[in-house]
């Protein structure tokens, strides 16, 4: 297949190039990227050919394929929630061509066999690159370190116990230190489980009003503090997952100013929604960490703008409908996010919180740096890995149209602006123009 994209506006943080260009792709490889000063008229062939796809991309953008460094693909073990096939299909529909899948599968990804299984499945059935994240501790139990070096060799790009945070500070210290030799970072889900107790939403006036047990912001902030202090004292890197509070932002800001090697991510729901979304006991807005208050939402947006938060990740957490069709307290945590994350993030650009270049960096270059992923960007000779985007196209989220098995989204029915029209990943082309 030969693809010719004319007049696209490329923003590529990997090659650090930006401007109008024609891109020619020959059988999965970029054969030519021709930057030019202005849009030139193109006469597309009237007779579309099966072997040549020509696209007039005037007014459209081309970005490197997005990277989601926090995804739950659920396979092996929870294939009724999501599979590698459906999860990666959801990814490319949402513009992501690389996903990093968390270790809380069954069995847990705490040994190379599971990593090999995931990678083999991804190669066979996946639509995009899959980078497994290994468990920090065996069985996510927080007691013994997993075989991190061997997991790294098998293909894990980072380590995290995600939803089962390492509560023991000594184990966390050892994991952080050990990771220096392994060459892959620790991703910390910061939550003091004893402070969270059996909380189900943000603690505050609204949780009291709804009679739901609250999770205090302190539950996150205490552990963000611990991890940056450990990182500082033992000279390690640490990546803070899904930052949800203003206090966490302040701790990370101070740590960065002091030169601590800390990076951080947040998710679209934390800069888009507040705890109000939970009113009416909406289980699709139940997520961990919980949706917070307006001042937190503002702080997260500012932190994205100021560069304190480096990465936007989805924390794509698909669940079966039966796991959400229960009273709020009993519902599982999580939002199916791959198919909406980018469009929701584009709102930051439309609202002038971030410029487009900065947004794309947080979705491509920054996660690739943290995880040491080798990405070429859009350049001649490279395997093609790009998305074509109309940042102004209006569309409505319809959860029933998700290709993800997880229909658990609080954004159903939302009108969003900005849509991925094509995802091209190697020889695979995904055409979303009609969707």
């Amino acid at each position, binding site marked *: 297949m030969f693809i010719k994209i004319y007049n696209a506006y490329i923003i590529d943080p990997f090659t650090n190039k930006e401007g109008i260009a024609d891109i020619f792709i020959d059988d999965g490889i970029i054969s030519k990227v021709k930057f030019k000063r202005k849009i030139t008229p193109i006469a597309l062939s009237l007779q579309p050919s099966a072997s040549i796809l020509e696209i007039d991309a005037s007014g459209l953008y081309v970005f490197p394929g997005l990277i989601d460094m926090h995804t739950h693909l659920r396979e092996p073990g929870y294939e009724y929630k999501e599979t590698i096939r459906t999860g990666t299909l959801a990814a490319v529909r949402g513009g992501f061509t690389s996903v990093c899948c968390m270790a809380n599968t069954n069995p847990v990804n705490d040994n190379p066999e599971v990593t090999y299984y995931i990678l083999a499945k991804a190669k066979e059935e996946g639509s995009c690159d899959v980078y497994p994240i290994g468990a920090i501790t065996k069985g996510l139990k927080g007691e013994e370190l997993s075989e991190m070096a061997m997991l790294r060799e098998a293909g894990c790009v980072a380590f995290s116990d995600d939803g089962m945070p390492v509560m023991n500070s000594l184990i966390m210290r050892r994991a952080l230190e050990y990771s220096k030799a392994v060459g892959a970072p620790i991703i910390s889900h910061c939550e003091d489980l004893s402070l969270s107790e059996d909380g189900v939403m943000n603690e505050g006036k609204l949780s009291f*009003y709804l*009679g739901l047990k609250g999770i205090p912001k302190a539950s996150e902030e205490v552990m963000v503090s611990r991890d940056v202090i450990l990182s500082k004292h033992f000279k390690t890197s640490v990546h803070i997952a899904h930052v949800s509070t203003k206090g966490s932002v302040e701790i990370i800001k101070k740590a960065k100013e002091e030169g601590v090697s800390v990076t951080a991510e947040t998710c679209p729901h934390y800069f888009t929604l507040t705890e109000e979304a939970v009113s009416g*006991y909406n289980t699709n807005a139940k997520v961990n960490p919980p949706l917070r208050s307006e001042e937190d939402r503002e702080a997260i947006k500012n932190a994205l703008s100021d560069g304190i938060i480096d990465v936007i990740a989805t924390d794509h957490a698909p669940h079966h409908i039966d796991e959400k069709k229960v*009273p709020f307290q009993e519902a599982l945590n999580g939002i199916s996010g791959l198919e909406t994350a980018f469009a929701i993030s584009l709102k930051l650009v439309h609202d002038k919180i971030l410029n487009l270049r900065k947004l794309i960096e947080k979705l491509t270059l920054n996660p690739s740096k943290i995880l040491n992923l080798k990405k070429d960007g859009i350049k001649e000779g490279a395997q093609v890995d790009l998305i074509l985007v109309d940042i102004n196209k209006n569309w409505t989220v319809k959860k029933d149209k998700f290709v993800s098995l997880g229909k658990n989204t609080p954004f159903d029915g939302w009108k969003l602006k900005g849509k991925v029209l094509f995802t091209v990943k190697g020889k695979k082309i995904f055409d979303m123009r009609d969707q």
Partner: protein
Amino acid sequence: MKDLIGIKELSRQNIEEILNTAKAFKEVLSRDIKKVPTLRGKTAINLFFEPSTRTRTSFELAEKRLSLDVLNFSISTSSVVKGETLYDTLKTIEAYNVDYIVIRHSSSGAAKFVAEHTPASVINAGDGTNEHPTQALLDAFSILEVKGRLDGLKIAIVGDIIHSRVARSNLYLLSKFDTDIRFVGPPTLLPEDAPDNVKIFYDLKEGIKDADVVMLLRIQLERQKGAFISSLKEYFHVWGLKKEAFSYLKNDVIIMHPGPMNRGVEISTEVADSSRSIILRQVTNGIATRMAVIYLLTPKEA
């Protein structure tokens, strides 16, 4: 109105209508024949996922006085033993063609969940730590009987506020009237971020000395384990309502308790059995109030 999920959803007018209706039913209950044929041929089910003898008995009696056919469905569940989902239980019950579902469940929002999925009228008999609306209504009814009004009263709610659906329903009800509401108790059992119209007191005397109504809440014995309180003995010493309090309480104060009470923990025997206590009146009024609620609800035509 189809359901009674919470006081939150009611207007002052709704509340007054229920209380007026309850008054009429209380009169019926004082007659020799205490039953009215109003709902003959209709069926009510008491669906209790948490054990409760008092509330269930009160509802059952209210239903029988209205000539309803009554089914009792008690399911003991714990978060450890997961069986049928609430949704499936509900669909099973719906297949019996019941008209009224009285539900008690350990999850906040469970009554709303049930109401959204059934045409039957749903009455919340307590959902998690959210609401227990009929308790607040019978409390208001009892206060009205004694005080003649709700407006202008100072009401102190003492004890384990954060875990109490009774406290919440009373708060929402009293907030719809011109009342002065206080929460009194140890900081660990009070909301960290209290509603704007509530005053917080850690000191019992300060909180109740000028109150017209003192509502005591049951202290769960297991609170000691969660480090909410150090011991029941210390709780009684600091926050228990003892007869010494009569030296500073208003002469016409009324003492209330939703039951079952722990003598020697939140209340002393002398106070519980004193002339200022209206605890047994609350129990009696529960039946008339619950009759009024059931009577005023209209199930959706199936």
